């Protein structure tokens, strides 16, 4: 029960401090799950996120469910997800009741603009870290750059990129021994 409550508390914090899409949760996940508790490696988090991106549902929820399941099975998955959505339920309910023009307040806009800069800085750190962990050769460099450019400029669906890069990986490693693939 203690572990389940801890899962709930961790994802409650993550839910309470994710500003933006699912990617914005990654810096906190790395801190809480990888660095502090060693429940998963950086690489595993990337894998869960990739799967969460390609499966139905909200990416943040998918990633939370995955980590919760890995840690404590089905009940762990449920506790992690409940933790993740609780801050939203509380905050949005309060806003919906009392502040119908929440985003019109100057103080909210200033705070949010400040937070956005932090999110950008944290994402830059996360991407650098992910790059170091996952790019091993020129194929990795190309996949990184192509996926960045194609999504940032052509605005293609990330799912297509993930499927293509999986195919590239399978072809590249065709003749390698399973133990060599890292």
């Amino acid at each position, binding site marked *: 029960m203690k572990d389940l409550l801890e899962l709930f508390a961790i994802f409650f914090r993550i839910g309470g401090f994710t500003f933006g899409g699912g990617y914005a949760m990654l810096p906190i996940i790395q801190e809480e799950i990888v660095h502090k508790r060693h429940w998963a490696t950086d690489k595993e988090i990337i894998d869960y996120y990739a799967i969460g991106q390609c499966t139905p549902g909200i990416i943040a929820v998918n990633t939370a469910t995955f980590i919760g399941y890995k840690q404590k099975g089905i009940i762990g998955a449920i506790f992690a997800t409940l933790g993740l959505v609780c801050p939203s*339920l509380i905050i949005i309910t309060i806003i919906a009741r009392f502040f119908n023009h929440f985003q019109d307040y100057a103080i909210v806009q200033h*705070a949010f603009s*400040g937070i*956005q*800069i932090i999110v950008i800085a944290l994402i830059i750190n996360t991407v650098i870290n992910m790059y170091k962990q996952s790019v091993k050769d020129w194929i990795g460099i190309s996949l990184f750059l192509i996926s960045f450019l194609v999504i940032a400029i052509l605005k293609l669906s990330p799912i297509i990129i993930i499927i293509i890069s999986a195919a590239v990986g399978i072809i590249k490693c065709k003749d390698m021994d399973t133990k060599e*693939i890292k």
Partner: protein
Amino acid sequence: MIYFKLYLVFFKIGLFSVGGGLATLPFLQEIVDKYGWITSEELLNMIAISESTPGPIGINTATFVGHNTAGILGGIIATFGLVTPSIIIIIIIAHYFSKFSEEKIVKSAFYGIRPAVAGLIGAAGFQVAKISLFNMEKFNIRKNIIHIFNIKRLILLGIILYISNKYKKHPIVYLISGAIIGIIFKF
């Protein structure tokens, strides 16, 4: 029975929207057109608020729409509807993933996927940076190159990048500092 309907509608959204919170938008529009629980204008307002409040955007929007349709319980039920398909599908995948993650085909697929995911998260960050750090409107009016950049914000970004790499504090510490700095310096 409004609660049951809410649950089903958001269950469907959770089941069919692949690729993040914004993928739910076409389905949310359907709520306006088909059920008339909220107006188009209300929906836009809810999305704007959901983007600037803590929590995943998709969850925030579901809570909001549910709440304004059927009160506090409505918000909870809509959110539970949205996450149910995720929980079921991911539990099944996670179960098999742990079994097959050492298989050669899975390992080699992720060998390709990981660099691409790093790139796509970089792209997501770039989209936010583009809006937040650059000021194309002002540049178009004044035609002065200096106006493209939002200097105040770029300075903060530089400082945070430096500090966060040096001291490695919990990300939440920086997020709270960002909110306070934003308010004090009127970002």
